[in-house]
Every structure is written in structure tokens, then in C-alpha cells.
């Protein structure tokens, strides 16, 4: 598929800090491209470079086949972006905000078109309310509307679920899927919420300390149906012995950090706790970790930030 973004050897230095280091990746057209990394991995800096908020120290960015450094205006007129939070003019109404950003994007819009856009994000009834009266979720949705108001081909969303409640996260996920699958947009979505990214992304780029760790189709990177089960027992040795002697012998993966690890397909998860209890070794804890999370943690810093990510 034709790439919509091609990034080559991108590097960004701030004084003596290298935020992004020799990063190259390609975003295919018509996909949801997940951009994963821990806090401080360089995601936001990269996203900012994609919309020319931050100038690369070296490297090249091509979007729609055009060089960003020389065709900024043409590229950004076909791109909608929200970097970090969608901060809007709080003293203006949603409609006024939308009109401002539509005009800045070079789009002439009628009130009806703007209202349609607000309806798309479920804010039509609050169109004339000042943004300062909006909840975080509503601001986020209005931010999406400002990113879409000029009907861009490419949408860049940096941590779009930040600060949202579970319902807001689900709404955002559905909107992202709708934009790609129903409206044919290409989206780059950065996040540290692994489960959310797995639910929406077609392809994925994982970076750490400014460097690319892996890039590709999710189906090529890992088996999304695979789950890692960690079990703490009163007697690991006995537990492993009985496990290997049972019909679960193929599930045994390893023992590490005082836990016994099993790899199971999602179809095998049903009733697994009962089966483990039947081994007659007292269980102290049971934790099922999703395979993407496992995959991610193995890639980034050897899993030393597990707790931070779980939070």
C-alpha cells in the first residue's frame, strides 16, 4: 500500500538530550497506525515533528509524497492533528472555536457544516456553550472536531485518551475506528495504553529512548490471542512437576521472579483457574497479562517499568 508518511533517519536534540535518534518508519495509507512508547520515549517529540511544531535536528519527513520542510502549508492543510491536549479558546463557544480553526485550515465553512461536525462528535446541543463550561471528555471531542473540520486525509492524535473516563475512552476508540473504516482516513495514534492501541491499530511502531524497537502489522508482531499467566504458589517446584504431568504441560513457559509463567491461547483461559487448583498446590496469586503488554515490556527496558504501565 502507498505510504502516506515516510520518515527517514529522524533525529532531535535538545541541548545535550537526544529525544529522537535515527528514527525511520513508514505509515501506510488507510490504516490506524499505533505509536507506542513509555513516557519520555520520544513519541510526542516525533508527533510534533510530523506537524512541524518541532524542527528536526536532522533527517527527513515526507507526507503525501511531499517534503515537510518545504511544503508545510500544503501538507498541514490535508492533516488534522491534536498534540497532547486539545487546548481551545475557553472564552469562546464550541461553534466559534470550530470556525476559527476551520478558517485557519483554509476551509470556508457554513454554519450548517460546522454544526454537522459538532453533531459527529455529539456536541451539537452544546454548540453555543463556552468551552470553559465543558468537561474534559467534551473538550477532547471538540478537539477531534477541530482536527476534522477541514476534512483532512491524515489525522494525527497524540494520547487522545488522556484524562478520559472509561466511557470517554470507549467513545474515542469508536470514533477512531469510524474515521478509518467508514470515512477512509489514515490515523496515527500515540498512546501508552497498550490495550487500547491493540483494539484499534492495524500497524504499530514501538520506540524507546528515541529509538525504534519494532515496526509492523500487529498480526505479524505478535499473536493477539496469546496470554501470559503468572502464578505464585506455596511450592513452585511441586507445582511445576504436577503441571508438567497434567494435560497443561504445553502451557508451561518459565519460572521467573518467584512466579511460574504459562502461555495460553485465549480459548484455553476458560476454567484455567479451576484446573490449576486441581493440581493441589496452594495458589497465592494469579495474574493474566495480555500478550501485547508482555511483548511491549519485553521490548522496552526489560520490563522494569511494569508497575508504571499498570498504573
Amino acid at each position: 500500500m502507498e505510504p502516506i508518511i515516510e520518515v527517514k533517519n529522524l533525529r532531535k536534540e535538545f541541548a545535550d538530550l537526544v529525544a529522537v535518534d535515527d528514527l525511520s518508519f513508514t505509515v501506510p495509507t488507510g490504516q490506524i497506525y499505533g505509536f507506542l512508547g513509555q513516557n519520555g520515549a520520544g513519541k510526542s517529540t516525533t508527533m510534533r515533528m510530523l506537524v512541524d511544531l518541532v524542527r528536526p535536528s536532522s533527517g527527513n519527513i515526507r507526507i503525501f509524497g511531499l517534503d515537510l520542510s518545504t511544503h508545510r502549508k500544503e501538507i498541514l492543510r490535508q492533516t488534522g492533528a491534536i498534540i497532547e491536549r486539545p487546548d481551545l479558546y475557553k472564552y469562546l463557544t464550541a461553534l466559534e472555536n470550530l470556525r476559527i480553526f476551520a478558517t485557519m485550515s483554509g476551509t470556508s465553512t457554513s454554519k450548517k457544516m460546522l454544526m454537522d461536525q459538532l453533531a459527529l462528535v455529539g456536541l451539537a446541543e452544546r454548540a453555543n456553550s463556552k468551552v470553559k463550561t465543558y468537561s474534559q471528555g467534551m473538550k477532547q471531542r471538540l478537539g477531534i472536531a477541530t482536527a476534522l473540520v477541514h476534512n483532512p486525509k491524515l489525522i494525527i492524535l497524540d494520547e487522545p485518551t488522556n484524562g478520559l473516563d472509561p466511557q470517554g475512552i470507549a467513545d474515542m476508540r469508536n470514533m477512531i475506528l469510524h474515521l478509518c473504516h467508514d470515512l477512509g482516513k489514515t490515523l496515527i495514534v500515540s498512546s501508552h495504553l497498550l490495550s487500547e492501541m491493540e483494539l484499534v491499530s492495524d500497524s504499530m511502531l514501538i520506540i524507546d529512548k528515541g529509538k525504534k524497537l519494532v515496526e509492523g502489522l500487529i498480526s505479524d508482531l505478535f499473536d493477539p490471542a496469546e496470554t501470559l499467566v503468572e502464578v505464585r504458589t506455596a511450592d513452585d517446584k511441586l507445582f511445576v512437576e504436577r503441571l508438567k504431568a497434567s494435560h497443561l504441560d504445553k502451557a508451561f513457559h518459565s519460572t521467573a521472579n518467584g512466579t511460574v509463567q504459562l502461555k495460553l491461547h485465549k480459548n484455553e483461559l476458560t476454567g484455567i483457574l479451576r484446573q490449576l487448583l486441581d493440581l493441589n498446590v496452594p495458589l497465592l496469586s494469579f495474574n493474566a497479562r495480555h500478550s501485547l503488554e508482555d511483548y511491549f515490556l519485553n521490548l522496552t527496558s526489560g520490563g522494569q517499568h511494569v508497575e508504571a504501565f499498570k498504573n
Partner: protein
Amino acid sequence: MWKLLKIELFKIFKRPRTYIAFGAIAAIVILIQIALRFDGRSYVDLLLNNLKDSFEMADDFKDKLLNGYLICFVILNTLLIQLPLLVALVAGDSIAGEANMGTLRLSLTRGVSRTEFMLVKFIASVIYTFFLLLWMALLSLFGSMLIFGVNDMIVLRSASIELIPVSDVFWRYIAAFGFAAAALTTVSALAFLLSVFAENSIGPIIATMSVVIVFTILSEMNIPIYDRTIKPWLFTTHMVAWKGFFYVKADSDGVAIRGSIENLHSILRSLCILVGYTIAFTGTAIWVFRRKDILN
């Protein structure tokens, strides 16, 4: 560009803080007018105190002096020192305020060049400055003309007293307000430049006022070495050149020559220096902003 300018002006005039300056000007002008309406004679006496040994002035004459034109001159003298602060409130906020709100980030992801973005911001703050002066002219000139009427205008200078005929005054005010607009545009450009470096508007506003105050002190000091070296190049030295429109040439009998300006060359030189500063401040602001990483 016109569409962008329209939305910029829309944003400025939708903000409540924009009207602080208009309110402040109205309050000061009206307070001065009220004071002079009820106790104008005392003010004129004070004004002519130094001249009472040289001239004998009848009360009728003093009453004629206290007219709309003189009141406007008094107000301009007072307010043009404070106006830079009011101008800096908006110009200093233009970039830094957007950075603080986070809207700068969203705005710059749009298909607008940074130069265009900056030019529109600067032009909008200049238009705001013009509106502020227009408001001041309406209240101080037309308001005073309405309340106090018009008559010949007295101008006191260090060594002389000049009387400008009533029919020769109005155009001088138009020119003075025009010049004041250029002077305040320079302050606006300075606040605009400082705004590029900050991420909240308090910093550029305070920094602008600090520069204006320090430069004004230097401009007012009578130290020979500064008179020759620094003072001619400080923009604050030239901001008061609007007074030159009220300094007239006199004929051999000491009568003011209608339509004359004593030192037009000096006013034009001041204007050129102010425009030069404005171009330098704005150009630097655009140059810096084009290279700036937006990180907030």
C-alpha cells in the same frame, strides 16, 4: 490573510481583558475632565505661575485658555506615559498568551505559515492600538471640545509662551494622534517580540514596561555623555516628539505663523527612528518564531 486577520481581531475583542484598557482610559480622561470642569481656574493659575511676573493676565483671558484644546493637551501629556502598559497588555499576550493557553500548539498545526501567523498577530495588535488611540481621541479631544468648547490654545515652553489660533489647532491634534500611533506601535512591537520568548503573558508585559521605564529615565536624564551617545537612539526619546506639532514658528512680531511647525525635520527623524525600531522588533520576532520549537 484578511480572513486570518478577521479571526485574530475577533479573538482579541471577545476577550474581556481587552476592555480593561478602554475602561482605564475612559476613567482617567473623565476624572481629569471633571476635575478641570470644577477647578480649572486653579489649574490654569498653577500653569501660569511662573509667568505672572512677566505678564499681567485678566481673568477673562484665563477663562479662554481653559478650553477643550488645552484640556486635551493636558490629557495627552498624562496618558501617553501610561498607554504603553495598556498596549503591552494585548501585544505581550499575543504569542505568550496563546502558548500559555495551549492554543498556539493547535493553531500551528494548521496550514498557515509561521510568518503569516506572526504578521497577522502583529497587525491585529497594531489595530488594537489604533482603536485605543481612537477611543482616547474621542474622549479627550472631542469630549473636551464638547464640554469646554474651543478657543486659542496656549502652549508653555521652557523659555516662552505660544498662543496658537483656534483655527490652527485641530489638524495638529490629528497629526499628534497619528504620531502617537506610530510611537505606540513601537511599544507594541517590543511587547510582541518579548512575547515570542515567553510562555505566559505576565513576563512580556512586565519586561516591556521595564524597558520603557528604564529608557524613559535615560531619556529624561541630563547627562552630557548620554545626550550625545545613547539618548538620540532610544525610542523613548522620540515617543514624545508628538509635542513638536504644537511648537510653531513665530514672525518678527512674535506672532505664531499659521500652519507652521518649528522643527518638522526633527519630528520626521523621530518618526523614522520609531518605524526603524518597529521593523527591527517585528522582524526579529518573526525570525525567532520561525525557528522556534513549540514545546509547551
